[in-house]
């Protein structure tokens, strides 16, 4: 078994003049072919006026993995790090870092991706619900 933290960031595109990004970090114990255990999930959202750069991605990931197993290796998709070589990406993190390789790691990233997408949608919906209720309040007044 290997301890990893699968990380995925959703919302790296402009929407309503801002980048509303949600980073999900999930701590797993995995084997090469499947996930054995899910330990803990951290979710954080970030808002930016500019497109995130590599250093911004690293900051978002570092902040999200805070409090998760410090011995675990951070695993991400190469695309999330703008396809930079692994040695370069790894040198920017304070923990061990690698790109996804085995089936187990890919499965873990897939789960982190579902979590970040769903959390982002939920946060977005929450905002729109608030707006709706405010309007109703205005009408009833």
């Amino acid at each position, binding site marked *: 078994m*290997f301890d990893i933290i699968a990380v995925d960031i959703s919302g790296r595109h402009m929407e309503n003049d801002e980048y509303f990004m949600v980073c999900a970090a999930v701590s797993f114990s995995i*084997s*090469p*072919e499947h996930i054995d255990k899910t330990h803990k999930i951290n979710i954080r959202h970030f808002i930016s006026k500019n497109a995130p750069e590599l250093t911004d991605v690293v900051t978002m990931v570092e902040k999200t993995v805070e409090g998760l197993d410090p011995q675990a290796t951070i695993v991400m998709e190469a695309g999330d790090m703008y396809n930079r070589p692994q040695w370069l990406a790894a040198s920017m993190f304070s923990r061990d870092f690698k790109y996804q*390789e*085995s*089936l187990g*790691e*890919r499965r873990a990233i897939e789960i982190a991706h579902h979590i970040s997408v769903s959390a982002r949608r939920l946060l977005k919906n929450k905002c729109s619900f608030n707006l709706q209720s405010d309007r109703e309040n205005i009408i009833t007044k």
Partner: protein
Amino acid sequence: MKKVIIVQRTDPGSDELKNKRQLSEMKDLAYAGDYYVIGEMIQSRYPDRKYHLGKGKVHELAMAVESLNAVKVIFCNELSSLQLYNITEICKCAVIDKFQLILEIFALRATTRRAKLQVELARLKYEIPRARTIVSHLKKEERPGFMGLGGYEDSYEQDIKGRIARIKDELGHVQNHNESLRSFRHAHGLSLVALAGYTNAGKSTLFNAIMDENVAVEDMLFTTLSPVARSMDVMGRKVILTDTVGFIEDLPHWLIDAFRSTLDEIFFADIILLVVDASEPLDIMHNKLLTCHETLWEQVHDASMITVMNKTDLISRESLNEKMEALRYLIPNTVLISAKTMDGLDDLRQKIRDRLPIWKRKEISMPLSEHSMSVLSWLFKEGVVHSVKYADQIIVDLEAREEIMNKIQSFSVK
């Protein structure tokens, strides 16, 4: 054997070891395609839109083709139809890229109707995005149709699309047949075990060693193209073992789609035996394992995986342990074997047996009658009978799947 020159363009600053490995794999592919490599040319630059290499390098290539009497030039990189056309014009010989070479090899090896259809489908899928450009280049002097307003491009593209649809339809029938065969086998308690792995890992040799068969084996890429399935007995349990086509790095999606009905044998298996050539250097093993994991990803869901480290007779134990330690995050449930010397096959059978779907084990009693004897013979066929005692009743120690247990429950003496 036909003489060929191999050409590789590498991006500046790219991984040199990887480039070397790709070039050497290309040579092996050329050998498998019945070609003899008489020269190689490497250029480090970003691709040119018209010639892929620099124009000067293409002229140098043309001179090499003439002096070495090469009949073909094979590029390691994918070429656009415009690049193919321009290079062919200058070199005055046939020019193909890696994927066309793979298609040629597949065409050479395709013996069954299904394999031939798959190769044809792959070729057409490769051709379709290029069809319009190729035809407009070839026919640029001609103006067909009434008053020269017609064109060949559309009709040729339509022809290809029509042929693709017909082949897909025919392969669909094969796929349906295979699916029903698979569900029939599952319903009869047969588990499916598939051999998967990088090409030339020794899958067919292992298949022959386990099954005592005589499937074609050669030290060459893509020796196996059509899957071969045989039933075997693994410590009392019957399984179907399938030998399949090997994986290769950067296999394009259209090729995987074309060979879907073959690869389904792996994707729907209960157990996948991932065969790895343990005698290769660590970085090559790592890259090949990555390719295997990437190909299996998204297709394989509930299958259990066993990593079969093959060709262990060619390396020392220390070196093997070092490799296994370095790659342990990519190799689940490892078994060390040598298919050639037949070492470790019993361990492999035991590993397969441990991972087969769990059957219930129970002692059942049946009345001593003629009908019970015929039921007993049926039980021998459907499950594993560990022991039979004949007393006032027939007491059978039976291991079988749930459906059989439920059926026999109604018949046994309470």
